Structure formats: structure tokens, C-alpha cells
């Protein structure tokens, strides 16, 4: 049902700001791709370029086999003719139209017969569980309901591509959880290729089949959620993904199969790597012992933050601080001594100068 989207060397500038910088992406039909990155990194701009609301300065965009934008050939298909639906961050429901009118607008423009319009509006409302709201005005509905109508408005004209710009960011935390499940289901049923924009890494990890991480307009990594989490291709991605944050430990390769972190050394395979490096280890990958154990380093607990399903422990030795996550409520208390094991099997090694991944964890 969906279609492929191919983006080639896309660049969009606003004056001196390069909002999207030479981005290339090949998205297979039916993919749920999330554009993830901090605010201002160019996600919305990239989305708007695909939608046809913004003309890029360079590059090409294909939707399926159809060339919808090419700077070099001077082609730019108008937004309304790209067969794309877009859910705006603020929903952009027309305040002077009822739900029904909001939804039938695009269908009327396409000159569909009345009966067909009616059928499609009802179907789409049913899909977002909003039947019976046809005659409401947007201001007469809650944020969550407006959000569903915004989705339904897009579904009604059955585009091949769904674009969504932080659709859940204006909802409260609870509603957001519910809507994530709904949206994922919706994508599963409709099968439309979807580009979903968010700055929320949890949202990206839970919903996507593919995550594209952006920074300052540049694509950093395009991978499955699992790979983005476990093997971030550079320090930015590593730091951005995961909560609590990954531990980034700066050190120097000492040439004897060890990384010298100052306070202690970690033995690991450093073949072909020299000079300054950064070790990245996820908080849940650090093993904690309450007794002295061989191959561990002694730390002092600085703070303990239980959160129900797991607890976060902040521990220090000298200037070095690490964050550890352990399941359940931990018996460990502040100022306790703990012995931490940094297993080289679960450590990613990054070049200190470029920030790029140089040695991948083994498991």
C-alpha cells in the first residue's frame, strides 16, 4: 500500500542557517521512519521539504518512482499533488469548519461524489474512534480529540505517505502513551510509508521501524531502534539516545590492550586504535557488586534514585562519575562502597577526536 521515498543530497538553507544539510535517505514502502534530534536540528524543515511546503536549495526527492522535486531539473510538484498527508504539530484544524467539513475539504477539492465523501469521513472517524463528533467545532474538543481529528483528516483522503510533525508533543504524558499505541496500530493497518518527527527518543525507540538521527541539519545515523540504541555511530547519537544517559568515559589507549581512564584502567581490544578515546557504556550494562570482586573498580555511592521498576545509582571515584541502572529497588545506600565491573564486551569505543565509533561492543 505504501510507497518508497527517496531523498538525494537534500539541502535547505534559511539565509546563513543550513537547516538541512546534504541529507540522503532511502525509505522502503511501508516503513515507519522517525526523524529524531534535538529542537532546531532541521527535522521539521526536512519534513516540509518532502511535503512540498518548502522548496529545497539542492537535491532530489522521489515518491515511489515519481520525481516530485529536483533542483537540477527545476521540478517541484505542488504539495497537493504529491499524494501526501501531513499532521501538523499544532494540528492546524480549520477553526471555522466542523469536524465533518475539516475532513471533507480535501475530498471536495478532489470532486468525489457526496456519498463517497460521506462514507470516507465516517470510515476515518471510526478509525480514530471519533464517530459522532461530526458536527463539533475544533474549539469544542479537547487536545487529544483534536489530535485524533487531525489524524482522521489525513486518513480521509488516503495518501500513500503519512508525515507527522511531533503529533503527540502537545498532549499530556498519559494521553501520549495511549496515542503511541494507537498510532502504531494505525500505521500497521494502513501500511502507508510514514515519516514521523520527534525530539523524544523514547517515542522514537518505541514506535519506529527505522530511526534517522539528525544534528544541525546533518544525518548522523539511520538504523533500527535496536542498533541506534546499542551501537550509536557517534558520540552525539550515543549521548542523545537512552535515559538515563550513557556513561561516556574519556581516556587514552595505553598500547597494552588497555584504556587508561586515570582513576582506573579498562582492559579491552584496542587493535588499530590510538590516542584519546571515549568509552561508552550504558547504565544497565555496568555490573554492581557490594563486595570486593576481581576485575572491578571500587566506587563510592553518591546518590540513589529509585523509580519503581528500576533504580539509578550515581557513583564516584575521584573525579570520575558513572550512572548505573539496576532492576527493582536497590538495597544500596548513599556513601556505600560498591565495586563496578566494566565488561569490555558491552563497551563501545569512540575516537576522542572525531567522536566516531571505532570499536563495537561484542554482545
Amino acid at each position, binding site marked *: 500500500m505504501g510507497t518508497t521515498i527517496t531523498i538525494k543530497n537534500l539541502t535547505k538553507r534559511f539565509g546563513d542557517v543550513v537547516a538541512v544539510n546534504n541529507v540522503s535517505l532511502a525509505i522502503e514502502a511501508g516503513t515507519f521512519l522517525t526523524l529524531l534530534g534535538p529542537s532546531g536540528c532541521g527535522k521539521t524543515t526536512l519534513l516540509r521539504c518532502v511535503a512540498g511546503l518548502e522548496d529545497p536549495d539542492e537535491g*532530489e526527492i522521489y515518491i515511489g518512482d515519481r520525481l516530485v522535486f529536483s533542483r*537540477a*531539473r*527545476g521540478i517541484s510538484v505542488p504539495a497537493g499533488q504529491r499524494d501526501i498527508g501531513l499532521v501538523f504539530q499544532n494540528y492546524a484544524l480549520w477553526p471555522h469548519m466542523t469536524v465533518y467539513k475539516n475532513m471533507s475539504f480535501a475530498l471536495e477539492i478532489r470532486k468525489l461524489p457526496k456519498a463517497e465523501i460521506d462514507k470516507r469521513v465516517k470510515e476515518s472517524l471510526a478509525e480514530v474512534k471519533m464517530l459522532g463528533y461530526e458536527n463539533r467545532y475544533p474549539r469544542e474538543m479537547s487536545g487529544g480529540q483534536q489530535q485524533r481529528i487531525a489524524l482522521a483528516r489525513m486518513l480521509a483522503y488516503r495518501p500513500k505517505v503519512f508525515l507527522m510533525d511531533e503529533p503527540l508533543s502537545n498532549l499530556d504524558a498519559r494521553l501520549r502513551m495511549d496515542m503511541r499505541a494507537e498510532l502504531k496500530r494505525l500505521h500497521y493497518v494502513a501500511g502507508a510509508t510514514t515519516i514521523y518527527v520527534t525530539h523524544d527518543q523514547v517515542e522514537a525507540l518505541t514506535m519506529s521501524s527505522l530511526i534517522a538521527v539528525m544534528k544541525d541539519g546533518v544525518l548522523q545515523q539511520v538504523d533500527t531502534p535496536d542498533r541506534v540504541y546499542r551501537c550509536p555511530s557517534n558520540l552525539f547519537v550515543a549521548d542523545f539516545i537512552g535515559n538515563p544517559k550513557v556513561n561516556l568515559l574519556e581516556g587514552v589507549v595505553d598500547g597494552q590492550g588497555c584504556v587508561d581512564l586515570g582513576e582506573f584502567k579498562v582492559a579491552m581490544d584496542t587493535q588499530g586504535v590510538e590516542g584519546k578515546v571515549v568509552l561508552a557504556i550504558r547504565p544497565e550494562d555496568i555490573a554492581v557488586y557490594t563486595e570486593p570482586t576481581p576485575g572491578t573498580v571500587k566506587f563510592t555511592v553518591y546518590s540513589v534514585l529509585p523509580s519503581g521498576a528500576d533504580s539509578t545509582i550515581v557513583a564516584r571515584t575521584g573525579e570520575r562519575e558513572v550512572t548505573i541502572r539496576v532492576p527493582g529497588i536497590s538495597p544500596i545506600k548513599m556513601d556505600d562502597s560498591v565495586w563496578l565491573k566494566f565488561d569490555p564486551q558491552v563497551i563501545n569505543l569512540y575516537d576522542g577526536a572525531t567522536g566516531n565509533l571505532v570499536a563495537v561492543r561484542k554482545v
Partner: protein
Amino acid sequence: MGVPEVLQPPLSLRILAAYRRFIRWLTSARVLLALILLVMMVYLILVPLYRMVETTVTYQERDVLAVPDAVPGQLTAYHWVRMLASRVSRVFLYAPLQHSLVVATGATLLAMFIGSVLAWLVIRTDMPGRHLVNNLATIPYIMPSWTIAMAWKVMFNTRVAGGTPGLLEYLIGRPIPTWLAYGPIPIIISSALHYYTFFFLFVSAALMSIDSNLEDAAELAGASRSRILRRITFPLVLPALLSGFIMTFSKVMGTFGGPNVLGTPVRYYVIATMIRSSVAIGEFADGFVLAIVLILFTIVTIYINQRLIGTRKSYETIGGRGFVAHVARLGPWRKVLAAGVIVFQVLVIALPLGLLAYDTFMLHPGNYSLSNFTLHYWIGKSDINIANGTPGVLRNPKIYSSAWNSIRLSLATAFFTALLGVILGYAIVKGRGTRLSKLVEQISFIPYVIPGIAFGAVYISMFSKRVGPIPPLYGTFALLVIVSVAKHIPYSARSGVSAMLQVGRELEEAGQMAGANLWQRFKRIIFPLTSAGFVSGFLLTFITTMRELSLIILLVTPATQVLSSQTMRYTENGDTQMANAVILILITLVLIGNFIIGRFRGGSLKKGLGM
């Protein structure tokens, strides 16, 4: 990622691509509309200005009489030298300029005082009846600016200056001093009582928008009341005062009505009346030099004010919508003060109207006894012994045709102004940040700095001859509509921009995504969403056009006479009662319009002033 690089195409394809991009740029909604607006504004604003300047630096046909070797059309400094540095300069330029500056400065300062005090009382005190004061404050402004001047004449006219005695002279039986009857003092007072509304609106908006937290913070820091007023409140209100100053000063500089009623009879000319008399005797070049001088002075004033306001461009940006925590307690005097203020306001409105009405019932001017009572000026048949046989206004077909002209001029102007506002707003907001959008915005501002009478003068030069496909429009009704719409462009642009900003670009983009073309987007999304602004803009323009005089006085002909110019005509012919009757009709129409505005939610004078 498996995406091959984009290949560099051959030259022919690159040219084709550039051509396609250009066409797409040209036909994109914002560019297309901006270019159309630009052409229109160049034609309505820049070309006339150019033609006016051109006229002042070339010999005109009639100059041959004064300068024997003049060749019409030849470049010359003759007019400028004549106006700026010759025997007649004093009479034609320097004295009127001095008078204009005196009158404008005086009226502006007095208006500032009245308007600010009232605003403070309404917004920042516990005076009773504040709501009433608030409502009354806008009424003088919706009446024609020279209403009070006409009423002044009824009250203070004097035989000394060659007129008939006014009511006061009639009652006390002694001559009124000329300085009280005519000249700068009456002009200043009557103008200030009209224009204080600007200051009232600006200052009360500023006082309302000041976050009381700022003052609370100062009070917590131990500052005294007067210190807070001086150091916190005043600086925050200053931009509002300066905005009011610019607006009032430039309006008074370009106002024709009041000075013509109260200055011309004693040969106290201001630039505006001088432009009129130059144009009336066919000395267009002289009139245009005066108009240019007037424009330059207005620009300089605005520039100086802008420098003073500096980075604090607008008071709207100060703090949020703080509610007023500090209400000054006026103590036992509050009721007396309220009564005083309301009596003042009612007098300023009712007394002039009463005097004008009283005067229309007096058969022989200067005699205010009941035995002199007549309805002749309202409903009398033509009588050769009275007013040269002019019938009463309600029997006079000329008055009906003037009234109809006034109404259709106001309707047409209001419609096109409001429509233009939406389109200007669209082109400017959609193109934000582009040079084209800035250019449109800047040009749209130009009429703001051109005083009314000068703007009218500009149009004489433009439309007396055929320009390209457009026939000479001088003397036509269409020209009155065009000049009125053009003069309103700055206001329509501002209100259009704020209306568009409220709509938000996503709402239109959602229409684009749905496949709607430009016309469908305008019809189904943009017009409906800006309709409130459209309606209030329409009604306000209707009122301001109805009572406009300075702008069109140079352009009306007997066939296109409107009510405002008709009163001036009667005044100048000495048919005071007729003039007063006509202005009362005009005020009635304006008040009806204002009543209709009140019925529409969202319509307010403030919005119409582009605040």
C-alpha cells in the same frame, strides 16, 4: 545508504531548470500577489509623487506670463526659488509654515495632556463612571475634525473681523477680541478637542499592557509612589506618547478644515490652506512645492520620534496582559472629579452640536433671539432673498446627491480597503524575510507620512492627464475612491498583517496539503478566518472616509461634491446656517455608522487605527 549521487546535468537542461524555477517563483501565490500589489502601489503612490516633484522643477504653461523666456516643460528652479527665496516666500511659505508648526505643536501638546490624563483616570484610578468616560472619549474623533471649529464660530464670531456677531457677542453686547474668535488659539483648542482620542487610546492601551508586576517589584524595592510613576510607569508609556505625537502632529499639519474655518477669514494661513488657495487659482507648481515642504516636515517629525523611541518600538512588547493591581485612590474627591470629567466630555460633544443646531434655526445671522427662529434652512422653499435662493437642505437635490456621493464613496473605499488589507497582509506575511515582502511593506507605509491635503495634491498632478492606458481621472468619482483607498493603504496593510498573523501559516498550508489552489484557499480558509478583521476594517474605513475633507477637497468638482466638501463650500460662501445643517446631517450619518460598528463584535476604533 544506497542512494546514488545526483549527477550534474548538461547546460541546456540547467537553463531549462532555471527557467522552470523562475516561472514557479513568479507564479507562487505570495510573489504573484506581491508583484501585483507592487505595480498597483507604484502607480498609486510613487508615480504621483514623482509627477508632483517633476511639476515643481519644470516650467508650466502659465509661467510664460511671469517669465517671458520660459519654455513649458523645461527644467527650472524657478518655482523653488520663488517659494523659498523671493519677495513672496514669506507670505506664501514661511508664514504659513510657521503657523502650521505653531498650530500642530500646540494642538498636539494640548491633546496629549487631555488624552493622557483621561487615560490615566480611566485605567489607573478608582474614579466612578470610568466606563462612560471611556466610551465618550472616542466620540469627538469620529465626528468631522472641523465640527468644533464651526461651532466655535457660532459661539465666538465677532463683527471686528468683518463677520456677523456670534452668540456670545450677541448676549454680552460687546465685541469679542479677534484672537479669541479667529487664529491660532481657537484652531489649537478645536483641533486638540478632536485629536485627544489618539492619545487616550494609545496611552490607555499602554497603561493596560504594562505588567503591574514591574510596579510591584519597584514598590517592594522601596520606591515611592511618585518615583514609581516617574521611573517605571512614565518610561513605559513614553513610546505610546510618542506614537500619539507622530500621529496627531502629522494629521494636524495636513488638516484643512479647522484652519480654513478659523484662520482663513483673518488671513491666518497654514500650509494646508495655502496649498488649497494656490491650487484654486491654478498655481499647481506653487501648491506642490508647499505640499513637498509639508511632507518633508512630517517625515522629519516621524524620523525624530522614531529615533527617540529607539529600540522600544512598540509598547505592545512590554510584559504580558498584566491586570491592574495599583489603582490610585482619589479619596473623597473622586465623585467630583468624575462629574467634572464627564461634564467636560459631554460639553465637548453636545455643546458644539447644540450650537450648530441652534444656528441653523436662525433666519438672519448674528441674531439669536427666538423671534428670528426659522425652519427655512432645513425645509424652506427657494427664496431669492435668503442664501441666494438656495432651498433648505432637506429640499435641496444637491444635498441629496452629496449625501449619496458620501455614502457610496465611503462604501466603495471601505470595501476596497478591507479587501486590499487581506491581500496585503497575505503577501507581506507569507513573504516575511524576503526583500519583496519588505519592499511591499515599506511602500505601503508611504501614504502615512503624506499629510491628507498633500496626498490630494499629488493626485491632481497624476490624473489630470492620460497615463498609459488610464484616462484622465480628474473630476471623476472614481478618482475620489482611488485617492481614499490609496491613503488608507498603511492602515489596511497593518491590520491585514495582524489579521494574517493570527491565522497562522499552518492553516493555509493544511489547505495546500489538501490540494486546494490559491483561490480555493482564499475563499474557504483565509477570507473566512479574517472576516472579523475585514468587517471591522470595513466599518471603520466607512466612518473615516465619510468625514474626510483634507484628502479630497482639492479633487471634488461640483458633480462629485460630498457632504464634507459641501459644508466647506457653504462656509466659504458665508451660508453658515446651510453649512451647519449639512455638517449635522454628516454627523448623523457617521453616528449611525458608529452605532453599527458597536453592534459588531471585534469592531473598535482602536483596531481601525492599526494599533
